[in-house]
């Protein structure tokens, strides 16, 4: 009886999910309600979690709760800490949820709501969640080893080195791109710039409090910090209204880029307790709070989706970024569906804190489903504003024009009605001088969030406050990724440099700290500067580059996972990792090829460089702009080289893995697994573990 009831419930959930997807996919004409998105995504996630992750747990991984995890065997109260399942789920989610699932879907909305939403759901269920779950499992079975270490042991030594280099390269590109998103959100906005600038002294104050007054009392310090942040969001309006103060905080893109570069250097070189950690605490609370508030807002307001299911830009002529729906929708969505970066978290802190092997399922698979849901909410927020407004905010001036009149005329010509007054009125309502040409996704997402929040609390009166709260939320946790990433990048550079010259590898040696910080900040700072001066807005070149790098890292993780599963003798079920791996390699290689060689200058790096060089040679560039043109030519060629090197690295790894797989399948090589030997758990079933604090 129980079994029948169980089947009926799951068939019902599945049917509702299919109905939701059908509504999203087939609906035309009248505006669609956002509730369909929530229902479709929620039901699909529930069914996928109940059936697919359960199948992976049982058949593919054979999770074994009698086996002691690293947290039990090596419990030291510091790194290896047996942690309650729900607390660890919270840690893991806070670690993997970054700006990617917010920005990516927002940008991909230029194709319409349908392709992005479908990929967010399908990609997460069959790709992202599988990757996170299996890498977490592999790392648990190897004492919490990192992805690079597992690649070295299980694939080849060269594979490990390639994975390490790929991580560093991806981190540099990632930091440059996310910094560009912040610059485009704060450009010429005294309110937003003031709010974010004030978060630095607030973080310093918290750092001193947590270090000297009440060491480690994170909750009370964070509550105080969040209250101060809310106050500065409100106070930003007074700054924006005061001509003398507004002048100080009105910065150009280049000035903001240099300010962020200096900040990144300081955060990397200063003691971690002073700036980086307290900022991370604030960011974690605001991030979780804002995400849940957005979910609640969408459920309460259930806004109507204004964007069509598919726009005319599926042909690759989009103003936000160029490229056809395949492969660029998948590259742009990136983290909301599949993120290679997650493999670093799944093989970092989390496996060292997990209590039982079976917990890997809700933490590895479940947390990624939550992240995908964040992506769906971002898609809803972006698509619930009128398409004309969306394109006016996200398109560069070189395409739509720099004035409201020009933008309205161009965008209306595309079939998305927009009046100049709408843009002026919206900018005024949110307390900005202009919302035009803010490529990067953050401002349009903030407008969408503000409209949803203000429909719940405060109405139009609070639209400006909500907009700047959303900008602060996005910028704050982007900067957290930036400073934490810069510091980790610094350690990687020191580790690599230490192989050449020993003192450089000492993480406490001040000249080494300064030099490695300068190197890593200089590297991502270069990409940032390149994006800021790019007439196409920077995002057009850099976001796809980041997406390609990120998805290639996911392919690396799936290559490692497939190799381990083959060695475990799970050949029958190998398609679980093989199919998403093959898909990711196809998508990234196609995108990489097009970004390098496509004849359209808006898409291909080399054709853009060549077109620009031809203009210089023909004397069509004014004399005072020639130096800038040469810089642009160099940058485009550099981007082409970076893309090619990344693709080449991954191809080498794939070939190495293929050689190994063939040898295993042909029984020419005895597969050797590098798992930690089985040790029976000493804990009785039902042990909850300490509600240990650790990495958040």
């Amino acid at each position: 009886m129980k079994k029948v009831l169980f089947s009926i419930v799951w068939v019902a959930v599945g049917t509702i999910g299919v109905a939701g997807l059908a509504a999203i996919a087939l609906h035309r004409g009248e505006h669609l309600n956002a509730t369909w998105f929530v229902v479709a995504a929620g039901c699909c996630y529930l069914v996928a979690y109940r059936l697919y992750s359960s199948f992976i747990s049982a058949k593919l991984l054979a999770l074994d709760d009698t086996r002691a995890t690293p947290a039990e065997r090596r419990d030291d109260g510091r790194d290896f800490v047996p942690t309650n399942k729900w607390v660890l789920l919270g840690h893991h989610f806070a670690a993997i949820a970054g700006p990617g699932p917010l920005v990516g879907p927002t940008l991909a909305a230029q194709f319409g709501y349908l392709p992005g939403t479908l990929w967010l759901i399908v990609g997460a269920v069959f790709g992202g969640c599988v990757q996170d779950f299996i890498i977490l499992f592999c790392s648990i079975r190897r004492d919490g080893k990192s992805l690079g270490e597992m690649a070295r042991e299980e694939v080849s030594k060269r594979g490990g080195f390639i994975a390490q280099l790929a991580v560093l390269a991806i981190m540099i590109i990632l930091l440059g791109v996310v910094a560009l998103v912040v610059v485009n959100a704060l450009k010429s906005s005294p309110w937003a710039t003031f709010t974010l600038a004030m978060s630095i002294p607030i973080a310093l104050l918290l750092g001193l409090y947590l270090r000297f007054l009440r060491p480690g009392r994170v909750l009370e310090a964070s509550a105080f910090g969040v209250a101060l942040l809310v106050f500065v969001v409100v106070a930003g309006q007074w700054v924006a209204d005061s001509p003398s103060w507004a002048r100080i905080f009105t910065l150009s893109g280049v000035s903001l880029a240099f300010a962020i570069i200096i900040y990144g250097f300081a955060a990397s070189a200063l003691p971690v307790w002073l700036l980086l950690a307290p900022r991370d605490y604030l960011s974690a609370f605001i991030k979780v709070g804002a995400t849940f508030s957005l979910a609640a807002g969408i459920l309460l307001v259930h806004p109507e989706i204004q964007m069509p299911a598919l726009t005319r830009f599926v042909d690759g002529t989009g103003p936000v970024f160029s490229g056809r729906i395949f492969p660029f929708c998948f590259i742009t969505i990136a983290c909301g569906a599949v993120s290679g970066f997650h493999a670093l978290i799944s093989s970092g802190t989390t496996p060292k804190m997990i209590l039982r092997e079976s917990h890997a399922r809700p933490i590895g698979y479940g947390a990624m489903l939550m992240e995908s849901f964040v992506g769906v909410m971002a898609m809803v927020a972006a698509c619930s504003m009128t398409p004309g407004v969306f394109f006016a905010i996200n398109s560069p001036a070189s395409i739509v024009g720099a004035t409201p009149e020009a933008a309205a005329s161009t965008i209306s010509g595309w079939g998305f009605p927009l009046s100049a007054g709408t843009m002026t009125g919206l900018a005024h309502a949110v307390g900005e001088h202009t919302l035009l040409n803010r490529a990067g996704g953050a401002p349009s997402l903030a407008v969408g969030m503000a409209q949803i929040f203000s429909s719940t609390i405060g109405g139009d009166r609070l639209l400006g406050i909500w907009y700047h709260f959303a900008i602060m939320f996005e910028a704050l946790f982007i900067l957290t990724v930036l400073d934490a990433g810069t510091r980790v990048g610094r350690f990687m550079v020191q580790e690599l440099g230490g192989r050449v010259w020993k003192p450089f590898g000492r993480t406490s040696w001040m000249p080494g700290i300064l030099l490695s910080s300068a190197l890593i900040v200089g590297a991502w700072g270069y990409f940032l500067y390149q994006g800021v001066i790019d007439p196409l807005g920077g995002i057009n070149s850099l976001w796809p580059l980041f997406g390609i790098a990120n998805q290639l890292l996911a392919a690396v993780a799936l290559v490692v996972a497939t190799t381990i599963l083959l060695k475990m003798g799970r050949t029958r079920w190998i398609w679980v990792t093989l199919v998403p791996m093959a898909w990711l390699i196809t998508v990234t290689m196609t995108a990489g090829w097009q970004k390098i060689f496509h004849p359209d200058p808006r898409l291909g790096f080399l054709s853009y460089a060549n077109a620009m060089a031809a203009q210089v040679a023909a004397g069509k560039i004014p004399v005072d702009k020639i130096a800038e043109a040469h810089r642009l030519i160099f940058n485009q060629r550099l981007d082409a080289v970076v893309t090619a090197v990344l693709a080449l690295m991954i191809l080498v790894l794939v070939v190495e893995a293929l050689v190994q797989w063939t040898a295993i399948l042909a029984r020419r090589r005895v597969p050797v697994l590098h798992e930690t030997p089985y040790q029976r758990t000493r804990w009785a079933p039902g042990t909850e573990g300490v509600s240990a604090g650790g990495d958040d």
Partner: protein
Amino acid sequence: MRNVLRRVSKASGNLWQGLRAWCGDSAYESYLRSRAVRSVNCSPLSREEFYVQQLNRRYSRPNRCC
């Protein structure tokens, strides 16, 4: 009614402990508890030393994602 109150109180307590654990507020207490269970002989770190060491370890590896 008393049962309901007891359950609510227990759930709130668990939620509070979970929140403290999630944000790292109770990390030092867990560290001391773990030492007691393992019967470690050397003297424990002070709260301040533990806090700084924990942060230095945490921010030396990828712990925030894109």
